[in-house]
């Protein structure tokens, strides 16, 4: 079978398979009714993205095409694509839901997710572009020993990708079950298969354009929702917040930080993980190699920060809008009724009129994650709700595609081409990355199904903690610290990984929530403060004490690297087709 006919075959299997799966669940078994509008819009998105993949596949020939879309993406496009990679369904539905249940505390998460971007901008964006080629390990191994540093980078990248991917797949399965009424395993298989097709055939070019389209859809949809909410309250924030406070079960408490951040150590540790984890996510770092030069690299971060910041402000308005508007919609609640007390309309438990249900996690049909979806219905009717559901699905697809590409690239470029292969062969390297894509995709589907009933909430936090403790410190030291040696980086990075894993297992998030022990061994929920410190201290200590021949070469290589970091002389350029 030629590549083109194989592509058509896969394309038709995916579309027909999805249509079939969608048709097979019209029965009343699911909690959520099948939404034909949502499914139609989703199928349009899938067909369009498969079209893009087909177009991209014809333009993806070399390794450079596969990993970096040829290096010719503009700063503005890359900014949108980065925003697309970063605005996951968790940050859209999850944060909107968190604002709905806890108010201000939701904003704390948004802020944490945003503040890593200036750090990426100031410390990493230009050096990454000037030193790297396909993966961030190109940068860390620039003057250090290829073998050990690539292995370390692959361990760091693959653990981040695996934990992040499991969390996304489980979230995807549950969400699609709710939104479209599809069975969990069907949803996971559809998501996994589509992501394999996008990445294996279309590489970075298809992944980038899927991110861009998804980012535009998500920003457009969220803007419309926030606009409709504000319109309803005459563009007065005072009105909006006043109404929200008067109807929410927590009253005025939603306007200030609550119990989410309780003790300072936890707060700082989570803050470190979010801030520096962003600067160590392999799928994000990889995006800096798709632009032609350092100038476009910094432009990308500027646009990305703008889009992401704007989006988080929208989710805040959406969450408060949900609080204020859901009182008119008792049908969004389970077993609820609308009552009027002292002239204020409220939603209360049908059996217990003293129990206010606004902001209650469990009372909402489908749970708190459905906040934004219900609000879409409230402000735009069923057609708009279908649109937002399709956008949420598209969001998941785009994020898992980005993660899979990053995972496949580290397998083929870091492990295969630079550790195991005896000679350089670009065509073989691309082939390996496609095989790796398929294996990672199947692995993600299997794990998604295995972890269906598990609590995976800790996995995103863990992914950020590992990115902050393994990838980020080594990158920073490799770029800026002359005395870093291979041995120091290797053992320091591994120690940070082990500390992060051990601390999270004995923390409340795993020891109590997952393993069901009554008491955690430590109270710290996110390990970043200790695991980051471990990596930095050990790496610096071992590097200082390292007097090997390799260490001498590592230090001597710094000067040349430094000149290239600062000026870009000798950096990889773009190719034009």
């Amino acid at each position, binding site marked *: 079978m030629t590549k083109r006919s194989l592509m058509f075959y896969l394309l038709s299997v995916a579309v027909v398979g999805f249509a079939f799966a969608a048709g097979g669940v019209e029965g009343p078994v699911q909690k959520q009714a099948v939404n034909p509008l949502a499914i139609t819009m989703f199928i349009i998105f899938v067909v369009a993205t498969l079209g893009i993949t087909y177009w991209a596949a014809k333009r993806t020939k070399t390794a450079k095409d596969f990993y970096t879309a040829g290096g010719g993406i503009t700063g503005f496009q890359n900014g949108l694509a980065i925003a697309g990679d970063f605005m996951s369904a968790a940050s859209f539905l999850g944060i909107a839901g968190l604002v709905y249940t806890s108010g*201000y505390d939701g*904003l*704390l998460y*948004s*802020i944490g997710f*945003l*503040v890593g*971007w*200036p*750090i990426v*901008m*100031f*410390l990493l964006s*230009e050096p990454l572009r000037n030193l790297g080629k396909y993966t961030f390990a190109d940068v860390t191994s620039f003057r250090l020993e290829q073998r050990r540093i690539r292995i370390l980078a692959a361990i760091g990248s693959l653990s981040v990708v695996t934990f992040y991917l499991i969390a996304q797949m489980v979230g995807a399965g549950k969400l699609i079950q709710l939104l479209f009424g599809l069975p969990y395993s069907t949803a996971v298989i559809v998501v996994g298969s589509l992501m394999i097709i996008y990445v294996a055939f279309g590489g970075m070019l298809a992944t980038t354009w899927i991110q861009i389209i998804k980012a535009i859809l998500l920003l457009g949809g969220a803007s419309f929702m926030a606009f409709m909410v504000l319109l309803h309250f005459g563009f007065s*924030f*005072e009105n909006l*917040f*006043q109404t929200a*406070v008067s109807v929410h079960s927590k009253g*005025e408490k939603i*306007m*200030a*930080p*609550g119990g989410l*951040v*309780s*003790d*300072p150590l936890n*707060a*700082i540790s989570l*803050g470190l993980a979010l*801030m520096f984890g962003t600067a160590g996510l392999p799928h994000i770092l990889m995006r800096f190699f798709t632009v032609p030069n*350092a*100038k476009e690299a*910094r*432009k990308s*971060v*500027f646009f990305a*920060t*703008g889009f992401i*910041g704007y989006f*988080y*402000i929208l989710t*805040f308005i959406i969450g408060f809008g949900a609080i204020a508007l859901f009182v008119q919609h008792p049908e969004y609640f389970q077993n609820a009724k609308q009552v009027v007390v002292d002239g204020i309309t409220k939603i209360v438990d049908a059996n217990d009129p003293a129990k206010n249900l606004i902001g209650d996690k469990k009372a909402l049909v489908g749970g708190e994650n459905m906040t934004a979806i219900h609000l879409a219905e409230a402000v735009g009717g069923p057609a708009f709700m279908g649109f937002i559901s399709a956008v949420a699905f598209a969001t998941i697809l785009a994020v898992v595609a980005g993660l899979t590409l990053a995972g496949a690239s580290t397998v083929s470029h870091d492990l295969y081409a630079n550790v195991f292969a005896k000679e350089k062969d670009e065509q073989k390297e691309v082939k390996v990355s496609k095989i790796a894509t398929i294996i990672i995709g199947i692995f993600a589907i299997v794990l998604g199904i295995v972890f269906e009933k598990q609590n995976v909430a800790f996995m995103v936090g863990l992914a950020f903690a590992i990115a902050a403790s393994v990838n980020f410190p080594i990158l920073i030291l490799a770029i800026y610290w002359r005395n870093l040696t291979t041995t120091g980086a290797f053992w320091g990075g591994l120690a940070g990984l082990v500390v992060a894993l051990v601390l999270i297992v004995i923390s409340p998030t795993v020891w109590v929530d997952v393993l069901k022990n009554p008491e955690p061994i430590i109270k710290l929920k996110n390990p970043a403060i200790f695991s980051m410190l471990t990596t930095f201290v050990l790496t610096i200590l071992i590097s200082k004490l390292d007097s090997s021949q390799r260490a001498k070469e590592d230090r001597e290589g710094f*000067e*040349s690297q*430094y*000149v*290239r970091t*600062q*000026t*870009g*002389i*000798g950096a990889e350029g773009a190719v034009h087709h």
Partner: protein
Amino acid sequence: MNKALIEKIKNDPDFQKLVKERTRIMIILTLVELVVYFGFILLVAFNKEFLAQKLGDSVITIGIPIGIGVIVISFLLTGIYVYIANKDFDELTEKIKQKYVREV
């Protein structure tokens, strides 16, 4: 790049100026961002009452503009960096490249 060329570039006044300026801006802006964010986090951890204060008769608390402010400041800082880099760094980099790129 050979050793002699690296030495030459390193001793070039334009290169030294570029590195000095960029390092300065990088450190200042990074510190501002760290102070803004961790200052906010410490406020959340130690002084929730401060953030819960209402603005006049409004139901809106001071914590809301401060929180949104952290997002806006972060974005503005990236803008400041791009502005300075476009204005100063690119020109210097181009000058350095012109001088040495043939020797690479």
